[in-house]
C-alpha cells in the first residue's frame, strides 16, 4: 500500500471524527453516549478500510470500507452544522445511504468488484431508492417537528409547512422497499458463499461477521422489536463495531501467513510425499482446494497429487496457476480469489520449489549412496571370489605338486635305503624341505581364504576357528545350513578377528561365540571376560572389521568398558 495513500486515509479519518466532535460541541449530557458511539462506529469502518487496502491492495474493498465510513459519519456532521443547505444535504444522505454502501461492500466482497450486471443493477437501485426517498421525506419534514423553534436550521426543500403524515408514509414505503432489496442482497451473498471454495470461502468469513453485526443492528433499531432506547444506544456501537474490528483482527493474523509457510516447510519430515507437501502448503495458504500437479513424461499433461488430471495451460473457472521454479514443469493450481494475495502465492510457489528441490537432491544423494553401497558390496564380493580362486589354484596346483614330490622323495629314499647312505640322507632332507614347503603353503592358502568355510559352511568353519583359538572358547549357538557367500565370509572374519583380538589384547580367561539366525538377519556375537577397553574407532583391526561388516549392509557394535570384558556384535542382513 502506498504510504501517501495511507497517510491521506488516516488524516481523513482523524479530520472527519474531529469535525464530528467539533460540530456536536458542547456535548449534551443526554446525547453524549449516542454521539460517542456514532464517532466510534464511523471510525471503525475507516480503520477497516485502511486494513483492507493494506491486506488486498488489488481489491477495491478498502475504498468501499472507507466510503461506508464517510457515508456514515458525514451526514451527522452536516446536520449538526445548523446551516440550511448543509442540514438539507445531511438529511438527504443520512440514515440508510451508508446501508446501501454496506450492501455494495457485501456484494463486491472480496475483490471490491461486482460480479454481474444484475448485481450492479441491485446496488444502483439501492443507492437510488435511498436518496430518492430521503429527498422526498425531507420535503415534508418541517424542522419544527423535532421541537426546535427559532434555533432550527431551515429546510431548503420544505414544501409549505410540511406534513408529518406524508413524511411517515414515505418512510414506511422506503422501509418496505429497503426490506425487499436487503433480502435480494442477502440471497446473493449466500449464493456467493455457497459457490466459493478454498481460499475464497475463507476470505468471506469476515463478511459474515459484518453481516451478522448489521443484522443485529437491524433487529436493535428496527420496528420489529422495541428495545428501550438506553439498551439500543448501549449495544449499537458494540454491534456495529464488531464487524470492522473482527476484519482488522483477521487482517493482522493473515500477515503471519508468510511465517506459517516457513513453518509448514520446516515441519515437513525429510522424504515426505508430495501429498504431504500439498497439505502443508494448503494449510499455510489457507486454500483447501490447492493442487500440486506434476508434468507427466511424454507430454501427457499434468496430474495432481491425488492422481487427477489438471490442465495447467487453461485452468478451470475460478482457478489460477503458478509454475514452480526449477521443478521440471510442476505447478500449483489455486483458488482464483488468491490473486488478491499475490505475495502469498509467490511465497508459496517459492516454498514449494525449495521443498521439491530438497526432495530431488535427497533422492539424488540417496541414489548415489545406494550405488556406492552396491559397488562396495561388489568389490568385497569380487575380492572374496578372487581369494577363493587363489586358494583353489594353490590347492590344485602347487600343493598337489608338492605332495606328489614329497611322496616321490619318500619312495626314492626307500629305494636308496641301505645302498647309498649319503644319497639317502640327501633325499631325506629334500623330503623334509618339501613337507615344510607344503605346510607353509597350506598356512598361506588358509590365510588367503579358509577352505573350511567353502567346504563346510559357517558352522564347521567357526568350530575350526574355536578349536585353534589359544583362549578357551565355547560356542553357545551357531546355525547349521548355508548362507550367502558374502554373509558367511563376513561372519567368519568377525569371529576370526575377534578371537585373534581376544588372544592378543584381552588377557581373557575365556570367550564365547554366539551366532543366531533372526528374521532377515544373522547376528554374530563374540564376548570375552578380559580387560575390555577396545574401541571400534581405535584399532585398525576393528575399523577394518566394521568396514567389512558395513560392506554387506551390516552394523558392528563394540561394547568394551575398561575392566568389563569385550562384547563384539555384528548384525548382518541375511535373506
Amino acid at each position: 500500500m502506498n504510504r501517501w495513500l495511507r497517510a491521506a486515509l488516516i488524516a481523513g479519518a482523524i479530520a472527519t471524527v474531529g469535525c464530528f466532535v467539533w460540530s456536536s460541541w458542547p456535548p449534551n449530557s443526554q446525547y453524549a453516549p449516542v454521539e460517542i458511539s456514532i464517532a466510534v462506529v464511523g471510525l471503525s469502518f475507516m480503520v477497516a478500510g485502511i486494513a483492507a487496502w493494506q491486506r488486498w491492495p488489488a481489491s477495491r474493498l478498502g475504498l468501499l470500507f472507507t466510503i461506508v465510513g464517510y457515508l456514515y459519519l458525514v451526514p451527522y456532521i452536516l446536520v449538526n452544522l445548523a446551516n440550511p443547505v448543509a442540514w438539507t444535504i445531511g438529511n438527504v444522505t443520512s440514515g440508510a445511504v451508508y446501508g446501501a454502501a454496506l450492501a455494495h461492500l457485501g456484494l463486491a466482497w472480496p475483490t471490491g468488484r461486482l460480479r454481474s450486471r444484475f448485481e450492479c443493477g441491485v446496488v444502483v437501485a439501492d443507492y437510488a431508492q435511498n436518496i430518492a426517498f430521503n429527498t422526498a421525506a425531507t420535503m415534508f419534514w418541517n424542522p419544527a417537528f423535532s421541537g426546535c423553534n427559532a434555533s432550527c436550521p431551515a429546510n431548503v426543500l420544505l414544501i409549505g409547512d410540511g406534513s408529518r403524515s406524508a413524511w411517515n408514509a414515505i418512510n414506511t414505503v422506503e422501509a418496505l422497499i429497503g426490506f425487499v432489496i436487503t433480502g435480494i442482497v442477502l440471497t446473493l451473498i449466500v449464493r456467493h458463499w455457497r459457490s466459493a471454495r478454498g481460499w475464497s470461502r475463507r476470505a468471506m468469513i469476515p463478511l459474515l461477521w459484518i453481516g451478522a453485526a448489521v443484522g443485529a443492528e437491524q433487529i436493535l433499531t428496527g420496528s420489529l422489536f422495541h428495545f428501550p432506547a438506553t439498551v439500543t444506544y448501549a449495544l449499537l456501537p458494540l454491534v456495529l463495531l464488531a464487524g470492522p474490528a473482527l476484519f482488522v483482527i483477521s487482517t493482522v493474523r493473515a500477515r503471519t501467513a508468510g511465517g506459517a509457510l516457513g513453518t509448514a516447510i520446516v515441519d515437513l519430515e525429510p522424504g515426505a510425499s508430495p501429498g504431504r507437501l500439498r497439505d502443508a502448503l494448503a494449510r499455510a495458504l489457507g486454500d483447501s482446494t490447492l493442487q500440486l500437479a506434476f508434468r507427466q513424461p511424454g507430454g501427457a499433461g499434468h496430474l495432481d497429487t491425488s492422481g487427477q488430471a489438471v490442465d495447467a495451460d487453461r485452468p478451470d473457472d475460478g482457478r489460477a496457476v503458478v509454475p514452480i521454479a526449477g521443478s521440471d514443469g510442476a505447478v500449483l493450481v489455486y483458488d482464483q480469489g488468491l490473486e488478491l494475495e499475490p505475495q502469498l502465492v509467490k511465497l508459496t510457489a517459492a516454498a514449494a520449489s525449495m521443498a521439491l528441490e530438497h526432495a530431488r537432491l535427497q533422492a539424488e544423494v540417496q541414489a548415489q549412496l545406494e550405488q556406492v553401497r552396491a559397488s562396495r558390496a561388489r568389490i568385497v564380493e569380487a575380492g572374496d571370489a578372487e581369494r577363493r580362486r587363489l586358494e583353489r589354484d594353490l590347492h590344485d596346483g602347487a600343493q598337489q605338486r608338492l605332495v606328489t614330490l614329497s611322496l616321490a622323495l619318500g619312495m626314492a629314499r626307500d629305494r636308496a635305503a641301505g645302498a647309498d647312505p649319503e644319497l639317502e640322507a640327501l633325499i631325506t632332507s629334500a623330503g623334509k624341505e618339501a613337507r615344510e614347503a607344503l605346510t607353509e603353503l597350506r598356512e598361506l592358502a588358509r590365510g588367503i581364504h579358509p577352505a573350511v568355510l567353502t567346504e563346510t559352511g559357517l558352522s564347521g568353519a567357526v568350530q575350526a576357528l574355536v578349536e585353534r583359538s589359544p583362549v578357551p572358547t565355547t560356542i553357545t549357538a551357531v546355525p547349521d545350513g548355508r548362507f550367502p557367500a558374502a554373509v558367511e565370509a563376513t561372519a567368519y572374519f568377525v569371529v576370526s578377528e575377534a578371537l585373534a583380538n581376544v588372544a592378543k589384547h584381552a588377557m581373557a580367561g575365556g570367550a564365547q561365540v554366539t551366532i543366531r539366525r533372526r528374521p532377515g538377519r544373522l547376528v554374530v556375537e563374540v564376548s570375552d571376560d578380559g580387560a575390555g577397553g577396545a574401541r571400534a574407532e581405535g584399532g585398525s583391526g576393528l575399523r577394518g572389521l566394521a568396514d567389512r561388516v558395513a560392506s554387506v549392509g551390516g552394523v558392528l557394535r563394540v561394547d568394551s568398558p575398561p575392566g568389563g570384558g569385550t562384547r563384539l556384535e555384528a548384525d548382518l542382513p541375511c535373506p
Partner: protein
Amino acid sequence: MIVDDHDGFRSLARGMLEAAGFTVAEAATGAEATEAVRAVRPGLVLLDIALPDFDGFEVARRLAAAPAGDPAPVVVLTSTREARDYGGRIAASPVAGFLPKDQLSGAALRRFLAPDP
C-alpha cells in the same frame, strides 16, 4: 583302488602301493569310481575329496548307500588339505578315516585295514 583325478599322483601312489604289496586299480572321477568299485570289488578305496564331477564325500555316501561286495570296501578319504580344513564333514561321513596325501604309505593304509585292537 585309488580314486584321484591327478594322473601324477595316481601313478606315483600306484608305484608306492604296489611296491608295498597292494594290487592297485584306478579311477579318475566319482562316476568312474562307483562303477569300478562294483566291478573290481577292492578291499580298500583311497578316495580323493576333490574330484571333477562330485566330491569324495558324495562318492562315499553312494558307496555306503549301495554296498558293493561283502565285506564292503574300507573307504579312506584323502586330500592335499588337512583334516581340519573339512571341519566335521569327515567325521560325519561313512568312511574309515582320513589320510593326508603327503602321509600316504603302504603302512599307513594297512592300519585302516587292520585297526589296532
